[in-house]
């Protein structure tokens, strides 16, 4: 069995990231510079971490879904919906209070955030029920929400971009804690919580079991329908959190464009991290690494001075490269080229 790849499972993604960072350092001398400004760290690396945070969140949720042999292509729509709900509920008006201009929210911020997350969870629940109870194929079940959800997000925002005028909300995506972007903390907390859940409870074992053999898991007494629903709910919530961070970062909610293509980036991150699309064994750390790779890639392209549209071509090339490397057929074909076949042996 091909255990070379998992001499450590994270070897290839890690190597890829290091390579990217090295390329960056070569072309961009100021890349590794960190400064302390305005009470926080400042630099390209910080930028990357900050922008990778929402993608990492979505990728974490996506990892668990993929591990159960599923997929969720509606996360982009959920990001948009969550952002729209929060933006609508917060809104923000300029009011003069006691002679000072302050922004006031329509609803308390905590309520708005909670509502957005509940709506995101409901989206996940919808997906989970379609997959687990109705028995639809995950790609088609989540395709429904992807199509309809985008419409719902546009409906909520009226097709416009809703600007949020409320400083405390901006902290999520723009604030800093202990010098690092707050968004990174959010992602880290979510990652840590999920990791604990997976390793200190039976959840990790159950998810893998379901992904490898759902029928046998059911016979063994694993409540796979419940776990599958929970996994999709979590994926929705993770997308919801990402939506909040993103809308906070850009101080607005765009029903048309928020989260577009994000599901593909998330799936790419998970695949880069070594989790197979066929489910089973998975790696959260790998997916986070994958998100970092994608973000670093984007930054590298930008800093080298290549037009950002090239980003897509490069992403494509990276996907091809990773896919081929992960394919046993490709590896043996390459080995066949490198090692000359013994003459006369049957192929």
């Amino acid at each position, binding site marked *: 069995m091909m255990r070379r790849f998992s001499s450590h499972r994270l070897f290839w993604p890690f190597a890829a990231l290091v390579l990217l960072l090295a390329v960056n350092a070569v072309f961009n001398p100021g890349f590794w510079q960190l400064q302390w400004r305005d009470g926080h760290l400042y630099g390209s690396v910080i930028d990357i971490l900050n922008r990778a945070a929402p993608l990492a969140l979505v990728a974490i949720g996506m990892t668990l879904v993929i591990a159960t042999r599923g997929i969720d292509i509606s996360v982009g729509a959920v990001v948009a919906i969550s952002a729209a709900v929060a933006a609508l509920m917060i809104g923000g008006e300029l009011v003069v209070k006691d002679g000072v201009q302050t922004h006031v929210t329509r609803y308390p911020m905590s309520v708005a955030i909670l509502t957005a997350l509940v709506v995101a969870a409901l989206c996940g629940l919808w997906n989970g029920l*379609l997959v687990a109870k*109705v*028995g*639809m*194929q995950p*790609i*088609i*079940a989540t*395709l*429904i*929400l*992807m*199509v*309809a*959800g*985008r*419409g*719902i997000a*546009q*409906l909520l925002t*009226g*097709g416009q971009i809703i600007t949020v005028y409320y400083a405390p909300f901006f902290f999520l995506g723009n604030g800093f804690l202990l010098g690092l972007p707050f968004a990174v903390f959010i992602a880290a907390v979510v990652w840590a919580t999920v990791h604990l859940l997976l390793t200190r409870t039976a959840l990790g074992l159950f998810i893998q079991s379901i992904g490898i053999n759902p029928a046998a898991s059911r016979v063994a007494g694993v409540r796979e329908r419940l776990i599958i629903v929970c996994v999709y709910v979590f994926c929705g919530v993770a997308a919801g959190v990402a939506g909040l961070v993103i809308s906070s970062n850009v101080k607005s909610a765009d*029903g048309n464009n928020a989260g577009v293509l994000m599901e*593909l980036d998330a*799936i*790419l991150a998970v*695949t880069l991290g070594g989790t197979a*699309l066929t489910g089973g064994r998975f790696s959260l750390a790998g997916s986070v690494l994958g998100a970092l790779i994608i973000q670093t890639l984007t930054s590298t392209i930008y800093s080298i001075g290549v*037009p950002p*549209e*090239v*980003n*897509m*071509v*490069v*992403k*494509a*090339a990276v*996907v*091809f490269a990773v*896919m*081929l490397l992960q*394919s*046993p*057929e*490709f590896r043996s*074909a390459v080995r066949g080229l490198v090692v000359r076949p013994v003459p006369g042996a049957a192929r």
Partner: protein
Amino acid sequence: MMAAAATAATPAVRRGLRIDSRFVPLVGTLAVFALAAGYGGVAYTGFFSAQVFLNLLIDNAFLCVVGVGMTFVILSGGIDLSVGSVIALTTMISAGLVEHAHWNAWQTIPMVLAIGTVFGALMGWLIERFRLQPFIVTLAGMFLARGLCYLISIDSISITDADYTAISQARIRLGDGASITIGALIALATVALGVWIAHATEFGRTVYAIGGNETSALLMGLPVARTRILVYTLSGFCSALAGVVFTFYMLSGYGLHAVGLELDAIAAVVIGGTLLSGGVGYVAGTLVGVLILGIVQTMISFDGTLSSWWTRIVIGALLFLFCLLQRAFEGRSGKG
């Protein structure tokens, strides 16, 4: 084992019902179309005109062409996410060749068709040779094609070539004030060709076999590898042809053309009765699926009070309905 004993106990299966069972999804699709058309005719004045129905085909001709290719891919158990991007790439290359390199239409069209076909063949080869997942390969293809678009030009390039403009504006009279475009004719021809390929050629039947049970198809000695590559090649060709039709429709090349079109194509195929798991479905169904998508769009614009994003919501709801139907159908026939 269970099914064996059950049918052994009832040797004379209900004949009439059984034969029809594989047509049930298609019948369902037609029923929805009829319902929608009927409702539209009743609710909106001017709905039941020949031109309105012809416009369904005219405005969605490119979706129709792409849908044919997508039907074959899905029948074989795969998926092609690159179709929208290949359409965009086709428009961009066409615009570039015609406007900047001063090729004429009759040189450009074969060229872009060839490019699309080769693109599809490459993806198909990667999928087959290295056993890669179609989802990921065509996803990468999607990124690649659109990226290549932007490499050619970030802004849109308008096409002012005389031939293109003439084709774009050409209308073939069908009597009584109704007319049809060249693009729509191409779409109909593609559907006809697709139906013929699916039912009368070995390639078409092998596609169904692969979708039904790939291992069996291999053991039966069918040319699985060659067919799989050809399926994606066909899809690439259809995407390029759809791109040509799109170019007539929009008279420009732009990287943002046809964003998300692959989803519409998949929706049309599913609503048309093809199972996403492969092996079951009809090309003709996809035509009806496209018409249903078109009719939803038309009804919403006729209504006037609903904003255009309700289209997405309705399509999502339709998808949901059809998938439920497919689940029920699968459940009844005993398939897991």
